[in-house]
């Protein structure tokens, strides 16, 4: 599997030489005008995706779902059901693509792994004291190693927002580096910013570059556990960041909006953002994911509607 190495961004290594140089670099990134960014995201949201384009988008979206359960009440049974759903999202139509991955807590990785075995569906695990990330680095790294050892293909880490907001960018950077190392070559790393807590778009752009400099394979908006999660605007901003990062370093990084994307209409809007911002190189589940759970059933109902011409209902999709 193609994986970035932490040194891939060699062109920019000196910016991470010290806290000062990292701060100067991040604060030297172009600013973001809130109104303009949101207006652009809204404008792309008015694209009208119909017929063949819609069919393509729905299948692509299904293939990009990281089907997620991150509850205190998760049980092996729940996770097995989720895995089955990921492998056969629509049992009535075997042409339906599988989802990209299932996303679970570390202690459920082994169960998930077994549930999707042989299907190509990946197992992603949140780690690093998800969702708050408020634990000692050693604890976080142990969390990561545990998940990787259990067979996780992907690790979704959270950054230390406290450190970021306190301006300790190098601390955040070093932590991502450490997690990256803990992932080894087996697991791809998704770095979650919790954009709702970073609050400003300038911060989201800085965090995006910080994460990419540290070797993230994906940058991810949010945990789904706070009030504001993925939005078209913050995802557009992150797509601009990965586009610019590749232009500058040659390294491609994926994007994962997570939380709050519930309808096909929403998902298609995000795919339009991808198509018209980062470009079609990102229109693949290796580079773009949706962190979602209820979205999948809406995609399936819409898929059935396209196939049959009549509107489907919740009784015709599975509720696992």
């Amino acid at each position, binding site marked *: 599997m193609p994986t970035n190495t932490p040194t891939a961004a060699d062109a920019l290594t000196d910016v991470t030489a010290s806290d000062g140089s990292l701060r100067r670099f991040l604060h030297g990134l172009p600013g973001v*005008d*809130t*109104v*303009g960014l*949101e207006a652009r995201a809204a404008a792309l949201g008015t694209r009208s995706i119909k017929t063949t384009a819609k069919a393509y988008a729905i299948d692509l979206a299904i293939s990009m779902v990281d089907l997620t359960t991150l509850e205190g009440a998760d049980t092996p049974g729940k996770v097995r059901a989720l895995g089955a759903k990921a492998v056969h999202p629509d049992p009535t139509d075997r042409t339906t693509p599988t989802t990209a991955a299932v996303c679970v807590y570390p202690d459920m990785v082994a169960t998930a792994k077994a549930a999707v075995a042989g299907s190509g569906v990946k197992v992603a695990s949140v780690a690093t004291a998800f969702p708050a990330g408020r634990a000692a680095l050693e604890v976080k790294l142990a969390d990561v190693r545990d998940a990787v050892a259990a067979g996780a293909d992907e690790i979704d880490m959270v950054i230390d927002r406290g450190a970021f907001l306190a301006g300790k960018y190098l601390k955040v950077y070093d932590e991502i580096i450490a997690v990256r190392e803990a992932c080894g070559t087996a697991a791809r790393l998704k770095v979650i910013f919790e*954009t*709702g*807590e*970073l*609050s*400003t*778009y*300038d*911060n*989201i752009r800085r965090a995006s570059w910080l994460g990419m400099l540290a070797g993230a394979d994906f940058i991810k908006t949010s945990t789904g556990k706070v*009030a*504001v999660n993925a*939005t078209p*605007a*913050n995802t557009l901003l992150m797509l601009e960041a990965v586009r610019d990062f590749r232009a500058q370093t040659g390294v491609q990084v994926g994007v994962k909006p997570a939380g709050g994307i519930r309808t096909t209409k929403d998902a298609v809007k995000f795919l339009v953002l991808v198509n018209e911002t980062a470009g079609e190189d990102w229109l693949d589940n290796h580079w773009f994911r949706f962190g979602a759970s209820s979205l999948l059933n809406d995609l399936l109902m819409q898929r059935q509607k396209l196939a049959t011409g009549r509107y489907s209902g919740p009784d015709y999709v599975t509720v696992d």
Partner: protein
Amino acid sequence: MSDKTDKTDQQQRLSVFKTYKLYVGGKFPRSESGRVYEVTDAKGKWLANAPQSSRKDARDAVVAARKAFGGWSGATAYNRGQILYRVAEMLEGRKGQFVHEVAEAEGLSKSKAADQVEATIDRWVWYAGWTDKIAQVVGGGNPVAGPYFNLSSPEPTGVVAVLAPQESSFLGLVSVLAPVITTGNTAIVIASERSPLPALSLGEVLATSDVPGGVVNVLSGRTAEIAAPLASHQDVNAIDLAGADDVLAKELEIAAADNLKRVLRPQPVDDWSAAPGTDRMTAFLETKTVWHPTGSLGASGSSY
């Protein structure tokens, strides 16, 4: 001046005549053409020779007015108010001279002339107070339907040619000149053709009142001859036709269309002492509207 002689019983002292000159760019040049014309009082008695400006004088005045525009329009409104008030102070000190000139020019009694001059000084004071208020009266915020701060502000149009009224040599002159410069424009004023002396003397007052050179330029001569090149001048932004008759006004308005000057047509004025509104100021103001996005609270603080 008419009092060429000062009769006393002891002896006759020969008075000193004043050579009236133009006021351009803060200096007092003669007309480059070397021409003068006779100025007489209401009864036809010779008063002085006034410069008869040429089109080249008009051109020089435009250069001076343009050069002064940046500084004058960029000065704070408070500063402009202070300077214009200083003009009133200087006028008050030279009241006697102006009463004398206005009486002769317009054939008025001393007391009628004094009324005119006092009204003129009061008008300067009135306009001096407007410099830092007009923007609040005619500008303001606009409540647009979107995340934008939107503000309209008046700005001076630029270089304004002013044809001073022919009849009211001083009050009329100031009533058309003061509103133009109050708001930050610079002016080329063509004095009353028949009665230019108060206007030329005003130049002397302006020169000693901290008004930067070029803000007001005073030309005397044949109104039609001077106005024509100003009306067609591509670096003049506006023209006040107060001192033009209907035929000249139409001609000048047509010429002014070449660069779309703002044109204030002549309007009948029965009594220059009547309270002016803001119209003569707003006629030479542009409205600039600037949009700024708001919404700086960012990702979690804005509208979703």
